[in-house]
């Protein structure tokens, strides 16, 4: 029988987030759903061990009786309660389930049954007046003062979900520099959260997110930002139907609107994925739908332009879409004697865009492209070279055919050597080679015409490209990369890694400048990352990159600093 919810009130309830503990002081009253009440001077609930104690002048009232004692402890996972009665003589009683009328007298108890937790120097997350506990799931606090930036702010309620269901961690919000969540309501299957967020575009703003979850499904929806006109309505959902079929979807509407008035612009994106497990393989059907404007076509405005409000909110009727059915095989060993694993894949799909060309050949728009492909991925398990070195190799080959007459071959190969220095340090070096070829056969020079190193713009004007590699580009590229990595983790509180990446690509990358954005991979890049664990619930991750002689880039724009659990 699942443990039943119960309610606790006290003059002061305290939640210590770093030790998963809730304590109550003075006028403690615990109300179980079976009508039993326990009063006392002190309460402590260990959320992870799923047990609580009431101590000090304990009065236990149950339907049909009343008992006085020094302490009462309930181990909810085992439907056992332990009690120190105070009658003419002390005793030790064990209650089975909720049968308080027939205690097992004198029975041995676990040794720490009545121990009180030590909370000195622990982090107080909130104070509250009442709390409703659903064992192993949640605690709903009311009359809350919440720890924020060194002070305590009053809020009506705080819903603490400590469920082991990972679906509660699904996220539908975009990233932000700072995110301060306020879960204010919820249940075993839901969670409503207000977020106070900050980023460099929207500055300080509020958002809202709603979770609906079960063990096998989730639906998460959000409005972000809630307090800015340019916002996103997001929804992501998943459902496991049996053990071999899963549906997954994501929908997004980006709108510019004042609060919930008629938006001046609204675009949408939707994808859906269905996965079906087969014997030794699985099938996946995936579709994407883009809607540049969800609004009705407006009347022509200035200069015949189509827009809502003013020309900064143009109306665009474009709605590209694509879909594909893929088959992915399991890993198989080539032979018993050869250390080589391989995995096959294939797929069939279509992409359609009624307004923008997916391909443009011989002055012909291809607004619908059908394609199919086959691919193989092979790799060696870790092979020991001598006593200390480990060798890995990975190769991948794919050919993709299109209804527009061409096919693309992609071949990539990776070799790595690594060495592990005990449990704390490791180094590796990897060489990666990737070739991509876009084969048009006799029409190769039509698709990639000599001397055209550019494209025609919407006005029919040719825009040249001032980069010689691209002027010589005929649809075949080579990327070569050499990666060296070092990681050092001397203890659980400190981690560091250093990675050097050296890339020799053709066509050469276009370095970022005031005229052009970054295209391609930097020739030489050094990345460093340090992670410090401050305490059990807080870590700080600091990372930065340096680019050697790559246009305007030297140091990456700023440190990446992340504070998290």
């Amino acid at each position, binding site marked *: 029988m699942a443990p039943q919810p119960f309610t606790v009130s006290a003059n002061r309830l305290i939640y210590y987030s770093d030790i998963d503990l809730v304590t109550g002081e003075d006028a403690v009253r615990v109300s179980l759903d079976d009508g039993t009440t326990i009063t006392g001077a002190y309460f402590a609930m260990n959320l992870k061990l799923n047990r609580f104690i009431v101590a000090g002048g304990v009065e236990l009232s149950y339907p049909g009786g009343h008992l006085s004692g020094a302490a009462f402890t309930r181990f909810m996972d085992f439907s056992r309660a332990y009690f120190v009665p105070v009658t003419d003589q002390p005793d030790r009683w064990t209650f089975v389930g909720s049968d308080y009328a027939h205690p097992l007298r004198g029975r041995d108890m676990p040794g720490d049954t009545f121990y009180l937790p030590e909370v000195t120097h622990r982090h107080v997350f909130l104070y509250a007046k009442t709390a409703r506990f659903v064992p192993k799931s949640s605690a709903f606090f009311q009359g809350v003062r919440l720890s924020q930036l060194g002070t305590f702010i009053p809020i009506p309620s705080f819903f603490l979900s400590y469920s082991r269901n990972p679906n*509660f961690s699904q996220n539908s919000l975009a990233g932000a520099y700072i995110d301060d969540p306020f879960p204010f309501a919820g249940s075993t299957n839901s969670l409503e959260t207000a977020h106070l967020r900050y980023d460099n575009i929207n500055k300080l703003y509020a958002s809202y997110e709603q979770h609906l979850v079960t063990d096998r499904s989730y639906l998460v929806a959000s409005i972000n930002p809630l307090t800015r006109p340019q916002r996103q309505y997001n929804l992501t959902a998943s459902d496991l139907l049996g053990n071999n079929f899963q549906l997954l979807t994501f929908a997004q509407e980006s709108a510019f609107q004042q609060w919930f008035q008629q938006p001046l612009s609204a675009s949408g994106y939707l994808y859906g994925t269905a*996965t079906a497990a087969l014997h030794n393989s699985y099938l996946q059907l995936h579709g994407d739908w883009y809607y540049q404007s969800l609004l009705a076509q407006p009347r022509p405005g200035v200069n015949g332009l189509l827009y809502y409000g003013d020309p900064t909110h143009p109306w665009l009727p474009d709605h590209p879409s694509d879909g594909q059915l893929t088959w992915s095989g399991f890993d198989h060993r080539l032979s018993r004697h050869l250390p080589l694993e391989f995995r096959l894949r294939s797929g069939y799909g279509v992409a359609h865009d009624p307004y923008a060309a997916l391909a443009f050949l011989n002055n012909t728009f291809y607004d619908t492209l059908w394609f199919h492909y086959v691919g193989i991925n092979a790799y060696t398990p870790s092979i020991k070279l001598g006593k200390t070195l480990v060798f890995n190799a990975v190769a991948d080959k794919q050919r993709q055919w299109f209804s527009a007459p061409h096919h693309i071959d992609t071949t990539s190969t990776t070799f790595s050597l690594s060495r592990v220095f005990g449990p704390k340090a490791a180094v590796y070096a990897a060489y990666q080679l990737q070739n991509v070829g876009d084969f048009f056969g006799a029409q190769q020079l039509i698709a990639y015409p000599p001397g055209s190193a550019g*494209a025609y713009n919407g006005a029919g004007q040719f825009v040249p490209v001032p980069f010689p590699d691209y002027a010589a580009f005929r649809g075949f590229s080579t990327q070569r990369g050499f990666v060296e990595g070092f*990681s050092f983790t001397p203890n659980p509180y400190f981690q560091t890694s250093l990675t050097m990446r050296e890339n020799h690509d053709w066509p050469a990358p276009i370095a970022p400048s005031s005229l052009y954005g970054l295209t391609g991979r930097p020739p030489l890049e050094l990345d460093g990352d340090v992670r410090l664990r401050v305490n059990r*619930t807080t870590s700080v991750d600091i990372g930065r990159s340096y680019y050697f002689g790559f246009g305007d880039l030297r140091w990456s724009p700023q440190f990446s600093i992340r504070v998290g659990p």
Partner: protein
Amino acid sequence: MTVQRGRVAFVILLVAGVALPGLASVAAPPKPAGSPVPTSSLSPAQTALPVPSALPSAATPAPALPGLTMTATPSGTLVRFAGQILDVRNGFVFFTTGDGFRLDPSLRTDDYFTGAPTPIVPALRVYARASFDTATHRVVQLDLSRRPIPPEASYEAVHAFAVTASSPRPNPELVPRAGFSGRIVNVTFTALVPSTTNLNDVVYMETDQSGWNPLAIRLDRIDALHYRITLRLPSGSEFLYRYTRGSAQSVERARNGIEQPPRSLLVPEVDLKNQDDTVYSWADTNPASGSNSAPGPDAIPTPFNPAPFPFPVPRKTLKP
């Protein structure tokens, strides 16, 4: 599933006390004056013992094992025991061991650290050193403090003084079944990732103890296909985890492409545990490219055709 988890945790609970057999919590009946102090009235299999935390965050601090101090008194021998008070009622003081001890009518209370009379009243959560008269089995003095105080006599030395109405009876539910002490075990997780994982990718571990935050534990790459991290976990605890590449959308998938329940590890009673896992695929892997980018029209047909750069793509003329 819930039942199974509960059973596992119960086993942990039951077996946890084996390593600390000195902390028997069952009060023996009062002994006549002058009788030797029993060291333990229970066999190890019957002994009810402190339960180590099933999770590292949930440790319940157990009182330290005290030493024995005896001082000659006119009435017999004085035994001192330090602990924390649960309650003082009806002429008894109750300690967090669950035992009630009878207070002597001439009880004296002092400050533990100064030895002077104290305004602290013996009450719930107050730390106390109780001095027992071995002749009367009564507490004749309480030295009080609001801070933890160092242990003195062992629990075995005083539990015979506890007053109990019922004879102690063994609890069949507390029979140990396996050897978990809650000791800290270095568990090294090594994950074999899909061979399509990019060399630039960072792999993390999300766990139930960190609220399934996908950035909670960062793994170190040790070669092209393996990531590794060593965690310190208490033996007997059940550790739930999943690998991810840093977001809820890039969490690992089962071999058959379906979302899988979290991995579970019952931390064994060893010095070092190597846990080797295989990640078969990531949720955001695009099968068409074999890479970890979401599929979309931008990837079709190729970045090299028709315009590899951010130049205008030819568009059809719109008719207003």
